[in-house]
């Protein structure tokens, strides 16, 4: 028995060696995204964008040789304490560059592992300033919370004409708390009044918070929370028949949100990175792919609506490829150097990085839920005045 086992082990090891030897012309790109937990839905949609991009462009030419791009997934479970081990998993898999994560908290948690290994990371939709601040290896292709919070505050105050705003964030979630902070700062600067509260993780009952907002006469309920909480809030708000507008950040731009709002008469507004119809070719290709791949369809939430994070995932993949081309090698260090000089126009707009490693973005899209038809309706492009 023991002999058989040891023989088997030896055979497996041999196979593994052959496997690595044959994988000469492969560049590995790590996908550091949540596939489970509160942000699982969003993480999966972001990953879909990357997977689709990989399907569109599976190889890259470097110095006359063709390399195959291999995607390596690691599930960071949407939680800051699982992040570092998922990051370590990618590092030991030998990835050249990392994409992700959905959720700023986990991105910050995984960051030191990538820094130690000298692997550059490209944030796709993590909007908290701390992700890229004070380091050289973390880049990001989306706008930031100070910008997003300001845009939303401007929209609420100037366009909606609201004087009192109620803000709700998950306790200890960097993304929520940060965004609320910037929203509050701008809204108060404009002359409005803000009430902000936080709720503990795993809360399911938001009716009390909705009652609070109603009792205080808020005109807008701003809750930039994870998708799992947002659907609870929307459903309970619909049950209560609230008369204030619900407002969310980029996380709310999800078909799960639309699904839970359908048939109600709520006014739901979100700011986001990409508006379906922004690039017809991408939209058509992505939808066709979702419709022929059943698993991709399930990961997208069961329909072929395009989430902004999928478009961002698509752009992140090509940004990485652009950097690999500029670097002319699969070496992480060279790619990190090259990323600073990337100048690339993706489906979500032009991507160049500033001295912190953030993309230069100056507009956000505001979308409104069309609850009768179950789709997002484009409202306007909003920039900061």
């Amino acid at each position, binding site marked *: 028995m023991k002999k058989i086992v040891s023989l088997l082990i030896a055979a497996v090891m041999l196979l593994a060696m052959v496997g690595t030897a044959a994988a000469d012309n492969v560049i590995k790109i790590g996908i550091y995204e949540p596939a489970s937990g509160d942000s*699982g839905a969003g993480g999966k949609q972001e990953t879909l964008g990357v997977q689709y991009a990989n399907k569109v462009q599976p190889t890259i030419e470097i110095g006359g040789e063709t390399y195959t791009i291999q995607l390596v997934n690691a599930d960071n479970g949407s939680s800051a304490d699982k992040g570092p081990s998922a990051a370590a998993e990618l590092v030991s898999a030998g990835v050249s560059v990392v994409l992700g994560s959905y959720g700023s908290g986990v991105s910050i948690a995984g960051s030191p592992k990538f820094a130690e290994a000298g692997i550059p990371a490209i944030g796709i939709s993590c909007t908290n300033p701390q992700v890229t601040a004070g380091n050289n290896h973390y880049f990001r292709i989306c706008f930031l919370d100070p910008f997003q919070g300001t845009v939303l505050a401007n929209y609420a105050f100037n366009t909606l004409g609201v004087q009192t705003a109620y803000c709700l964030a998950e306790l200890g979630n960097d993304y929520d708390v940060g965004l609320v902070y910037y929203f509050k700062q701008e809204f108060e600067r404009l002359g409005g009044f803000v009430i902000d509260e936080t709720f503990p993780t*795993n809360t399911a009952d938001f009716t009390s918070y909705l009652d609070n907002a109603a009792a205080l006469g808020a005109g807008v309920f701003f809750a930039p929370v994870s998708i799992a909480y947002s659907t609870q809030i929307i459903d309970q708000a619909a049950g209560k028949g609230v008369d204030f507008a619900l407002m969310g950040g980029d996380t709310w731009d999800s078909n799960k949100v639309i699904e839970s709002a359908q048939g109600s008469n709520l006014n739901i507004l979100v700011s986001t990175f990409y508006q379906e119809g922004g690039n017809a070719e991408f939209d058509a290709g992505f939808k066709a792919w979702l419709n022929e791949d059943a698993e991709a369809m399930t990961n997208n939430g069961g329909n072929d609506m395009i989430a902004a994070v999928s478009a961002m995932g698509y752009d992140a993949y090509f940004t990485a490829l652009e950097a690999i081309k500029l670097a002319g090698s699969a070496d992480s260090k060279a790619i990190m150097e090259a990323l600073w000089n990337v100048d690339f126009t993706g489906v979500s707009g032009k991507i160049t990085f500033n001295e912190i490693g953030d993309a230069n973005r100056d507009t956000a899209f505001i979308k409104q839920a069309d609850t009768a038809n179950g789709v997002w309706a484009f409202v306007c492009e909003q920039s900061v005045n």
Partner: protein
Amino acid sequence: MFQTIFPYLLTGISVGGQYALIAIGYTMVYGILRLINFAHGDVFMVAGILMVYIVASGAPLYVSIPVVLILTALIGFVIERVAYKPLRSAPRMSIMISAIGVSYTLQNLVLYITGGLNQFYPKIPFISDSVTIFGATTKMVTVITPILTIVLVVALVLLINHTKIGMAMRAVSKDFETSQLMGIKINNVISVTFVIGSFLAGVGSILYFSNYTTVIQTSGAMPGLKAFVAAVFGGIGSIPGAVVGAFIIGICESIIKGLDVILMKAGLTKQMLGLATFSDAFTFALLIVILIAKPTGLFGEKITDKV
């Protein structure tokens, strides 16, 4: 003043009723086996997931609701037979660790099946509808929950006090070994306990998820923990204690979330104090205070040392 407090009170009573239905499962199992069944909150969550999938498969509600309740009771029965019965004579710590294992198994199984995506609980006509009482708009389920809870608890108390199996349960909870010697088939009694506990958790899950319609694999964790606190608060092992404890915790939690607004409307404070943040902390602090003042809980039996 009443207008301000009423919506919070309404939510609190409803949440309390749902905690009560879960808490009974904890307290009954503890009463019989002296075991804290940590998997109970997850049985509650699995009942929610079952409902999502059974309704999605096209079954009408009058079929899916009974099927969910029967399946949930069956899950409780199977868990006991597979994970707890073989450990009957093992130290109590082993069986508790087995319970934690079952809890994680259920959570990860659901994570695997749903892929970690939040599922929407189906809308049940009538109880998912909106209703306005004294100017507060809420779902019908909020009103139904406390009534249904009390009906079920009365039925359960009647069952325990006036039937043969109820007598057997009381005997087993008084003295495990002696009742065995007296010819009570304790395995049957224990199975019945788990079936009743899981059935009530199933009813609780229908009410709870009709109100809070998102189900994920961790959905059972917080209600389970709160229900456990309620059971300890009321005196673990006592059914009326668990119910009273659950209502107190539900109401306190809801009032704390709105306390800032209530104080402001009453003119006692000028600005928001951020008290809502402490709603959970308060629940657990209350537990500590009660346990210091009355270690056996509100309705707990006195511990008598048998020599």
